[in-house]
């Protein structure tokens, strides 16, 4: 079958999300007022016509399972195919002993799933990537270029935790693959790779028979001479949610209308699970400027330069500046918050003052009362 099959990796490997990462995998990080990070990968795939998507899970996946459900929100609840959850039942270590050591090991664990893929091409993506890629165009270009693997990368060397960077030849071929760089250089990999199903299967088999497990070192780095790996450069917004700092900076960029227009472009809508919240409401003496406000919020105080997820309530006299407040955060009367990320159902008691800094936002753990 022509077309694209999606595989999204969602496993623990990033430790810089502090309390935010303690209760969920990076793929289910709330982002942009009403999304989870994985909504972007799923929507990118669905918008490119993919109708079968596998999600490789490992560790802290309950939040992600809740979010994904049957895949209905992305039209992936299908009679045949659709969303398939690939749980960590098949990895080589004893239960709980270790995470997958790498993507190739994870894929080897779901070898029977891979062999049942109906489509000719597979896109490998990370669940923590926030982007709106024209994957259909990238697939076209992959097929036309005759590349073995197409690696989507940014046009920047932006530093991300555990990032991969490519050196590209003038023709766009990947000539070197770098990671663990003190000073990032080259093109930042978005960890989106397109290849044929046959090649993927043969790579998985080859790795497993040599006890190799890393996509990055055992495939990309080791085979950059023998495989034609083409870079495909994306010039737009692309965030990899791997640290609190990046989470905060990237969230705040959404207050820029040009970035929103690109990330939420009408031709390729980002779909999310819908919640039954009513309209958002601002009271007669409430004030809210330069902010993203999701459904069901109630603003009775002041909100500036912030991102409010559904059901956030800012009571009378409270002031919220430069904050990201997750679902159902409650800021009581007269409290003051700045440069703070509050996880779900946090309650800030009356008259409390919490101030972080743009370079070091405060993080308040899920369900805390301050």
């Amino acid at each position, binding site marked *: 079958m022509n077309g694209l099959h999606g595989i999204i990796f969602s496993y623990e490997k990033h430790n810089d999300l502090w309390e935010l990462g303690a209760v969920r995998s990076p793929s289910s990080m709330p982002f942009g007022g009403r999304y989870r990070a994985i909504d972007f990968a799923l929507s990118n795939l669905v918008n490119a016509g993919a109708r079968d998507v596998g999600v490789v899970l490992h560790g802290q996946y309950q939040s992600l399972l809740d979010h994904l459900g049957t895949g209905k929100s992305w039209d992936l609840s299908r009679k045949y195919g659709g969303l398939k959850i690939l749980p960590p039942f098949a990895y080589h270590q004893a239960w709980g002993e270790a995470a997958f050591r790498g993507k190739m090991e994870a894929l080897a664990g779901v070898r029977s799933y891979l062999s049942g893929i109906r489509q000719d091409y597979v896109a490998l993506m990370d669940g923590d990537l926030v982007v709106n890629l024209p994957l259909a165009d990238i697939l076209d270009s992959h097929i036309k270029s005759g590349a073995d693997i197409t690696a989507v990368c940014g046009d920047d060397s932006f530093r991300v935790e555990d990032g991969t960077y490519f050196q590209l030849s003038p023709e766009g071929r990947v000539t070197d693959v770098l990671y663990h760089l003190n000073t990032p250089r080259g093109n930042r990999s978005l960890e989106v790779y397109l290849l044929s199903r046959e090649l993927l299967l043969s790579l998985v088999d080859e790795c497993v028979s040599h006890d190799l497990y890393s996509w990055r070192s055992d495939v990309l780095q080791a085979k950059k001479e023998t495989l034609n790996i083409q870079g495909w450069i994306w010039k737009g917004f692309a965030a990899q949610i791997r640290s609190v700092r990046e989470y905060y900076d990237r969230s705040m960029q959404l207050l820029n209308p040009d970035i929103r227009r690109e990330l939420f472009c009408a031709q390729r*809508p980002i779909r999310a699970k819908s919640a039954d919240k009513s309209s958002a409401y601002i009271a007669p003496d409430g004030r809210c*400027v330069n902010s993203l406000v999701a459904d069901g919020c109630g603003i009775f105080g002041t909100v500036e330069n912030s991102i409010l997820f559904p059901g956030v309530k800012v009571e009378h006299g409270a002031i919220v500046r430069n904050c990201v407040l997750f679902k159902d955060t409650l800021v009581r009367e007269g409290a003051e918050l700045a440069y703070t990320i509050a996880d779900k159902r946090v309650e800030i008691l009356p008259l409390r003052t919490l101030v972080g800094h743009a370079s070091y936002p405060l993080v308040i753990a899920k369900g805390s009362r301050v």
Partner: protein
Amino acid sequence: MKKECVAMLLAGGQGSRLYVLTGDMAKPAVPFGGKYRIIDFPLSNCSNSGIDTVGVLTQYRPLELNSYIGSGQPWDLDVSSGGVHILPPYMDSQGGTWYKGTANAIYQNIGFVDFYDPEYVVILSGDHIYKMDYSRMVERHRESGAACTISVMEVPWADAPRFGIMNVDGEDRITEFAEKPKQPKSNLASMGIYVFTWKTLRRYLVEDEADPASSNDFGKNVIPRMLAAGEYMGAYRFEGYWKDVGTLESLWDANMDMLSPESGLDLLDESWPVYARTFSAPAAFLGKNAAITHSAFNRGSDLEGKVENSVLSQGVNVAPDAVVSYSVLMPGVQVESGAVVQYAILGEGCRVGEGCRVGAAPEETAPENWGLTVLAPGCALEAERTVPPNTMLDRTGREVEKK
């Protein structure tokens, strides 16, 4: 496939008193409260009351309603036995007719109800805004052994002549029914919500159909006939918010009520959620100079101007320097720079060009000239156009008379 209770939702009416708002859609499909359509209220009530089998009787312009209801999934009504069913009039070997009245609509679907073989049938209208637990009403109906239970609420005595009024005895058994009485004997108004014991109703529907003089209407024919025959007709008192949104003014009022939980319409109350089919869009963005007060708004919106005392649906844009006050903006409305919209209802997808003036505040207008200004869905106003208060424009921007 026996069900204890089946709901039949009358959604076929044109809603002619909503004029241009129902030009292309049935009244129950009209957007309400920023996030909903009117039909979300009875459908959500059914779902929350544990009624999983609902027939929706459609007739007038059903396209919008059909596509909105779809599989019934947003209301959790996509179940394998029962669920929500659209029931338009149909032909059989003897021919077929349009639904002649509310009772005839149910009569024509006796087969549908019989299929589920229920003890009770709940009859609902698709033009009321309220939250109600039908299961408690059914419970009371069962306990009282009534043939029919009608939900009623106390209205101010002065308003009583506008309603169907129930006179009851000490046990809330209905003794008399008076449609819009000049001299009301009670202030208990029918809310148009009925529970019937199905086998009794079935008999009366057949009788009513056989009567050529009948206009086949529940309020006018079936209920008086049952009362006259001495059937036990109970009244079920409802307390809480309830509003018939059959007119432009009441639709506007109910939207405004939503802004003030004191009105009794608290949509934030999560113990009785109202469900809706939603569309994908990012969170609303409020710009650097946005001045939004006492207003509701929704996802996909970009609000840069001044908005006060208004209800804004999904995907609404209000440009910088535009002003919206005391208005209801349905999904996708665009208000361009410098435009002023006051005391207006703007239908889905309207565009108000730069510098337009739409409607006016009552204090700025002679009382005899004042009224809500209403734009039909899809109406696009070129820049600098003035639409006076108490004016209605159709999709092409031409003025339409209120009859």
